[in-house]
């Protein structure tokens, strides 16, 4: 049956949209799940309808070129209480990491933030801009003329810093144990490839 066949795809769509920080384009989901884009859209429409029928507290909406979960307007008063309660007042780890990247690498483009974080930084960047912590400071003179972002004065004030130079330096960072272990493992792999190398007993030069 058609419905049965797409059960896995349905699950995949729900799972991906659930963990996404920004609207997920149906085309991307189509690639990931390896089904046509129209199929993804059909699944999303169907899911949105199910949530409506079941009077869920959330809805699946299409926004900014993609699908996202958000709280249902009927539950707005409770969501407001929750947000105001301050329990969600700390920056999400996604937003904090994004803010940190902007702070240390400014000025830079959204694409550069995403490249460092390894995930799409759109949503987090938007949040930070709205909160006045990050602002646009110009355009990249290179190809593409990407918008460049930097921290806003509000950011320094809130952190009690005089200038960006007062951020704790990254340079004295010492690699963690797992880096050392990975290094050892690969050194050993090398020894295995060249068994005679170990006979001289020299410690590997590094």
């Amino acid at each position, binding site marked *: 049956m058609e419905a049965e066949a797409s059960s896995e795809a349905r699950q995949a769509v729900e799972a991906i949209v659930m963990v996404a920080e920004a609207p997920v384009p149906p085309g991307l989901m189509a690639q990931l799940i390896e089904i046509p884009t129209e199929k993804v859209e059909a699944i999303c429409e169907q899911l949105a309808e199910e949530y409506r029928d079941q009077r869920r507290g959330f809805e699946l909406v299409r926004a900014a070129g993609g699908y996202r979960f958000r709280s249902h307007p009927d539950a707005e008063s409770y969501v407001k209480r929750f947000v105001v309660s301050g329990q969600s*007042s*700390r920056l999400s780890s996604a937003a904090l990491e994004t803010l940190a990247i902007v702070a240390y690498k400014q000025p830079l483009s959204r694409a550069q933030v995403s490249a460092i974080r390894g995930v799409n930084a759109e949503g987090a960047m938007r*949040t930070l801009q709205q*909160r006045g912590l990050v602002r646009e400071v110009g355009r990249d003179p290179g190809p593409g003329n990407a918008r460049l972002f930097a921290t806003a004065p509000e950011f320094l004030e809130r*952190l009690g810093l005089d200038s960006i130079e007062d951020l704790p330096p*990254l340079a004295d960072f010492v690699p963690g144990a797992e880096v050392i272990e990975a290094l050892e*493992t690969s050194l*050993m792999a090398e020894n295995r490839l060249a068994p005679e190398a170990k006979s001289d007993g020299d410690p590997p030069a590094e």
Partner: protein
Amino acid sequence: MTRGGIGGHYTCRVAAQVRTGVTDQPFEVRTDVFEGPLDLLLHLILQDEVDLYEVRVGDIVDAYLAELDRMEHLDLEVATEFLLIAATLVQLKSSRLLPSGEPLDLDEELSLWSERDLLLARLLECQTFKAAAQALEQLAAVAGRGVPRTAGPDERYLELVPDFLAGIGPCDLRAAFLRAAASRPAPRVDRAHVTDIPFSVNEVATELVARLPGAGTVGFRDLTDGLETGIEVVVYFLAVLELYKRGLVEISQATTFGRIAITWSGQAGLDDPLIAADAYDG
């Protein structure tokens, strides 16, 4: 007892060396890395069922000294802890070698017992936590199959958030940066069925500029582990060459087809030359 530490790692090369002649499978343990004497002892005793008295303490000491040489500076705590355990072993061993007819001083015998018991207790505790660690890893593996939602409230509610930076200081920011830059593997969407290359040389180079400073020496294979297509590896290789050209990394390869070791040598500072560089077309 000194509460020092051993930072030296006993590589398997060491273990194989001490056990020469004891087992006929000297290469079997090559995948292990031993952290300190407790670890090594546990391994020798449990995994290989070696009679401890077959192990030449001198060999362990030699191997350990070689290990210390390899470390950049002598850590006195490391050396102390090691010597303490080596001394305990020597004492236990030597007591066994003494002619059996000659009675030991009672005090000596008691102290020998207590040394032994202390070492035994530490080995047991160490073994207990090793097993616990494995159980935790399994729990994490099960839980890790799902990813938690962290999206937070959408824009409609954001202005209601009372204090966005509550409890966050400069050090939290630094930790967040290191988390974002260092512990995250390369951004990768599995697009094996799509022909285009998922990232450009410039993107990879930017990523490496974030990852490599402070990461010590990293093998090229560590960087490309998990990539699926040859072309992706090529993009990484080009990115590394680009960094080399700009004098940001040192590259070395000890043997033909051996490990390519990459060491960051540029400024890990705010003025990052690559960020301002022209984009490559990949």
